[in-house]
């Protein structure tokens, strides 16, 4: 069996038939990030099955070894201790949460285990001073850089955003607070965008956040930026809708915010035009997305998801991350094996060497380039908007009447979200401290 044409791997020079390569990964599967991590696992599982059916990595079969932290850092530590004590020691580990990366940063460096993480906070990747790269690499642009790029976009579109003032309304915690850094505030000010000095935080379990939203609005905000996902952006949109502020305040967020889950959870808070209140939300889109059907990588993912009967809620951003991760693994291992000569001889630092020189597009969905200097996260990003598809599936719906509505057993309608890029892929600014 052959992999599709568009996947261009380095040629194998060593035959690994009969061996196995394990993808070690652990993170919060059952806690607040479940909406993201569950599809991630699905994407991994589907793609691994596919890969193994198509020759594996140079003949080596892929397996996974994973654990759940439930969002509890004590568990993170316990699981890490388990992994680092394995024999042979893992050569590469995948993590999901910024908090976990920050916690383990020094330890993985001491144990010489490189880590790939989908999220990215400055501290996890570069330490407190923002200048010391560790052993952690991110497949997303840094959160603070994403905010910077959004400001660029806002500053460049004064007609759409007159007198822009951004309020940072987000979940509390490592992930939620990650983008709110002085560097971002300064950079945005340079772009002519003001960020309110007082961030507003809420918890994933909060029922009502009208106080936080009104605080932001009273302070003059006309844009809300959020570093939350799934229910987070949906709740902000609902609150804006309830308060009748949908027209005055625009909603935007991190790459996780532009996601199917938000569309699904936000389906019942309908604005006056009959569409969910999240309609029109801005955000980062560093990957190709499901609605770009012509793209071969997206098509590949679609086929995979369909073949495995994945629900609509699973066909989201994290599924894509899972599938591309497997492809990235393939490339990393082929390159390293080619250089080292055998699978058993590979160490963590060999993998690190490969990562330090890599420039590759996993499934052609985004670019991973750590060869260009000291940056340890991807840099390509687009600003996009979330809309809902119309009944004829030709484009965004303009109102509830022409939208495609799938009836749900609970009596509501599901609207199908689509993402519309507003910019071309471009590099995010580098807003690490000390730059």
């Amino acid at each position, binding site marked *: 069996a052959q992999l599709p044409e568009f996947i261009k791997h380095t040629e194998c020079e060593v035959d690994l038939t009969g061996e196995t390569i394990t993808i070690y990964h652990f993170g919060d*599967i*059952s*806690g*607040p990030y*479940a*909406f993201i991590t*569950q599809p991630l696992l699905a994407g991994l599982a589907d793609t691994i099955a596919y890969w193994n059916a198509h020759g594996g990595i140079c003949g080596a079969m892929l397996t996974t070894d994973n654990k759940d932290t439930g969002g509890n850092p004590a568990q993170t530590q316990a699981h890490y201790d388990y992994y680092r004590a394995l024999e042979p020691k893992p050569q590469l580990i995948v993590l999901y949460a910024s908090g976990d990366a920050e916690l383990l940063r020094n330890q993985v460096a001491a144990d010489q285990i490189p880590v790939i993480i989908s999220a990215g906070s400055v501290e996890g990747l570069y330490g407190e001073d923002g200048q010391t790269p560790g052993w952690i690499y991110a497949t997303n642009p840094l959160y603070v850089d994403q905010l910077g790029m959004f400001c660029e976009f806002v500053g460049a579109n004064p007609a759409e955003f007159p007198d822009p003032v951004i309020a940072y309304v987000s979940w*509390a915690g490592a992930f939620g607070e990650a983008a709110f850094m002085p560097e971002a505030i300064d950079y945005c000010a340079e772009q002519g965008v003001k960020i309110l000095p*007082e*961030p*507003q*935080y*809420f*918890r*994933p*379990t*909060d*029922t*009502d956040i*009208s*106080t*936080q939203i*009104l*605080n932001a609005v*009273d302070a003059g905000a006309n844009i809300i930026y959020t570093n939350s996902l*799934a*229910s987070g952006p949906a*709740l902000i949109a609902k609150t804006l809708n*309830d*308060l*009748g502020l949908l027209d005055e305040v625009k909603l935007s967020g991190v790459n996780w915010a532009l996601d199917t*889950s938000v569309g*699904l*959870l936000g*389906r*019942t*808070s309908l604005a006056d035009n009959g569409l969910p209140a999240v309609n029109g939300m801005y955000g980062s889109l560093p990957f190709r997305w499901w609605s770009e059907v012509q793209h071969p990588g997206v098509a590949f993912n679609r086929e995979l998801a369909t073949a495995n009967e994945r629900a609509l*809620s699973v066909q989201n951003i994290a599924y894509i991350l899972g599938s591309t991760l497997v492809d990235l693994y393939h490339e990393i291992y082929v390159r390293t094996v080619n250089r080292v000569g055998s699978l058993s001889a590979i160490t963590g630092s060999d993998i690190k060497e490969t990562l330090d020189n890599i420039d590759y597009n996993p499934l052609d969905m985004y670019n991973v380039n750590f060869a260009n200097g000291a940056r340890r996260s991807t840099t390509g990003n687009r600003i996009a908007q979330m809309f809902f598809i119309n009944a004829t599936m030709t484009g965004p719906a303009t109102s509830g009447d022409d939208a495609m509505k799938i009836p*749900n*057993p*609970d*009596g*509501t309608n599901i609207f199908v979200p689509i993402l519309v890029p507003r910019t071309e892929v471009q590099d995010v600014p580098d807003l690490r401290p000390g730059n």
Partner: protein
Amino acid sequence: MEALQKFYRENRTLVTWLMVAAVFIVFYLLTQERLNSLRPSRMVQTTITGLLVGGVYALIALGIVLINKASGVFNFAQGYMMLFGGMLFYSFFSTPNVNPLAAGALAFGTVLMVLAMNGWRELRNLRSLGIGVAAVVVLTLLMSWQGEDVRMLRAIVGGITGSVFVGLFIERFTIRPLIGQPLFTMVLMTLAVSEILKGFVNLIWGSVPISLQIFSGLERLGLPNTIRWEAEFLQGRVVVRTDLLVTFFLALAAFVGFVLFFRYTNVGLAMRASAENQQLAQSVGLRVRVILAVAWGITAILAMLAGVLQGGASQLDLNLPFVAFSAFPAVLLGGLESITGALVGGLIIGLVQDWGNLLYGNQAGTELMPYLVLMIVLIIRPDGLFGEKRIERI
């Protein structure tokens, strides 16, 4: 130090009130600026939202108080019972055709647990067996009633049946064996039960958030999503969410129901007696096990109600139980034994949270203020606002 201690002993009330006054003055000074710059609409809005959100806390608190009244145990599992009830409700709510076999099994389990409340020997009683069989049949029919229109009814029956089952199950197999053991063994037991419930819910319903659309029917009843109120003096708009309003009134209704229940039956008295001293209660002939079982059954229903309302107003996911951490201070604030206390405590915590967020930001309202207020109240009233006074007699 000695002199200080002596002074404190002699002027305890004075010192306490001075401290409280100091807290209030600091509070005022800290917030004066912010308060003055607020539009009246914000204050009204925050007060209303706070009260409404407090309704759910009150409901959770009510369940905890009930268990405590009946057994002297603080039920830390309340949050997870909420989650479980909510999920169960969701299953019946969003599945148009429930498998009659599953419904039958659930009904059977519940009826069995109810019959065996006081011991399995009751099953030998033919009369109660007959009633039991009839109950199983009726419940099964109700729960597997097909169709979209009876969704609500089906869900209510199913949710209650399932919750009662779980409540009685917990009581029977985890609480009852520990009768007479130290307090914190019981505390740990309820925490262990939480873990089991969490794992179980995760296993059956997965960990991806579920949106429970119970309030989507409001629109069809002609109720708007929000009620908006604009007036001159408000200098702005006040918005009331209908779903929260409904939640609030249901909580109130539950409260009134309880007050009446305890007023017109002896059960309340029996509960208090057996909570205080189970052994003694047994020795005067109270059926402590039945009392305990009834309390857990009712509490499970209350938890389900809270779970459904909270889940409906936000969403159902594994984080839902954390709402209970706002209800815990509410329970203690109101007083562990007091139903009124649960209501008042819930509302106060709701208010405090929202006002805290209004005045301070930085999560101060949600995380800090409830417990800070609790500490202050406990220093003045060690038994909460309406709690029974601890009897110190030697």
